[in-house]
């Protein structure tokens, strides 16, 4: 499978990656190279082979349905890139928000 510049631009948009125009062509070459190399998997007959999604054969454990944490808003907001906003300045573990650019006029 060979990818062209447009296909790479489409994948980049799906992945939410800004890729400068001049990088699209070299990327198309690299990605096509990787995909061509991967094509060799088609030599293998996998009819009736159950796909393996996990190496552990145990069923995923379920925990008791109860609250195990909370009240750590300040910790959760500690690395907020736009800074955190609190409703109550006196109680930083009760509320608080991440900030993002304005999206509605």
């Amino acid at each position, binding site marked *: 499978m060979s990818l062209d510049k447009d296909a790479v631009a489409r994948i980049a948009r799906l992945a939410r*990656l800004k890729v400068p125009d001049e990088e699209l062509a070299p990327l198309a070459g690299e*990605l096509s190279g990787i995909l061509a190399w991967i094509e060799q998997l088609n030599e293998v007959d996998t009819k009736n082979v159950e796909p393996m999604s996990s190496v552990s054969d145990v069923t995923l454990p379920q925990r008791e349905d109860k609250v195990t944490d909370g009240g750590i808003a300040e910790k959760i907001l500690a690395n907020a890139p736009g800074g955190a906003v609190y409703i109550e300045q006196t109680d930083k573990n009760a509320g608080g928000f991440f900030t993002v650019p304005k999206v509605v006029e």
Partner: protein
Amino acid sequence: MAALTDLTLTALKAALDKKEASAVEVAEAHLKKLDEHRALNAFITETPERAREMAKASDARRAKGEAALLEGVPLAIKDLFCTEGVQTTAGSHILEGFVPQYESTVTANLWKAGAVMVGKTNLDEFAMGSSNMTSYFGGVENPWKKRGDNRKLVPGGSSGGSAAVVAAYMVPGSTGTDTGGSIRQPAAFCGIVGLKPTYGRCSRWGVVAFASSLDQPGPFARTVEDSALLLQGMAGHDPKDSTSAPLAVPDFAAAARNTDIKGLKVGIPREYRVEGTAAEIVALWDKGIEMLRAAGAVPVEVSLPHTKYALPAYYIVAPAECSSNLARYDGVRFGLRVPGKDLIEMYQNTRGAGFGKEVRRRIMIGTYVLSAGYYDAYYKKAQQIRALIARDFKQAFEKCDVLLTPTAPTAAFAAGEKMDDPVTMYLNDMFTIPASMAGLPGISVPAGVDKDGLPLGLQIIGRSFDEETMLRAAAALEKAAAFTLRPTGY
């Protein structure tokens, strides 16, 4: 007594236990080494103050008679493990300045066992790479050099910093993570021991995720017994990681002290004799077979027919999981934010500027193979191949107890080599990826040097959750190979 920094982890623990040195003295001796060898660029963040505090607390516990398994032992931590209050970058610009508010389970286990953190080590960005050249913080230098050649060599990757600091005697042990070979390959390049446990042996909670069905933390050390002891401190069931195995932690160090392999069946997979492997590595592999035979083991030829498909299948599975895991870096809740005219553009700008070339490449491959219409052709196909690879190993282990293979197809290469074509770099992991795909434990043991004097490693692969037999074989190999060289100047 030898210098504190020359001791193995086991010997250092004994010296501390006999009160021949305090944890504070041990920490200071190693911090001095960090100062001396800073040019290797092996650390992203050094934590001398934290080390001194932890060492003091360790001495206080010992004075009260509360010494734990790794009491007072200084360790370096791959900068992929979240450490509370200490910057954790994953080698990426997008996480520069990120200060976790919680501690990963593996590091928490180590601190509970009394270990002391000296710093966070450099790595390929998000653990994606085999040379440490993809780190945003610059490549790490391998302490080893070719004889009569002053060029800088790579330490391997992705856990290159963690391997280099142990090889350079800056610490007796460190942590790494292994997705497709990221512990074993750098261990081979740096002439030390690197152990990838069975998937599920160590908790992944608090480890920055790359490919969740493959990622597994493990130790680096200079001896097999040291790596076993460290694994003992790291491992254990963790309810916070749903894939963590609910098993008790065996006495791994005791298993590594037993070098009796009489009658042990050592499988030699014929498909690992492939073109592109350095002749000296093939010769070393043959020598390793003879060493184990001389020690009483029985080599048996086995077949792993789908070996050659492990690497391309991995380059579907790992990028697919990476594209999904790395979707969280959007500039909203943590990490870098690059503004844009709207939300979508902010995401795109942030991720475009925050991720390096190799990470972007893998996210795009992953996005493509998971996209509508291609899922069956790529991801499902790769998962089916993965099932066949796991079945190969299962059948081989009906005929043998462990497998012996080379760790990497070459010795350490120069910085900047193999960068032209991504697939050339990927081939570095051809011997380590199959076991990763099957979730099996593997350990690299330094077993010789090439004509340039560079270390070479051999890999022992064990059955699922049978690290003990693997360690016994590795210890026997270590004893027979008697690798005692160290890099000049370290």
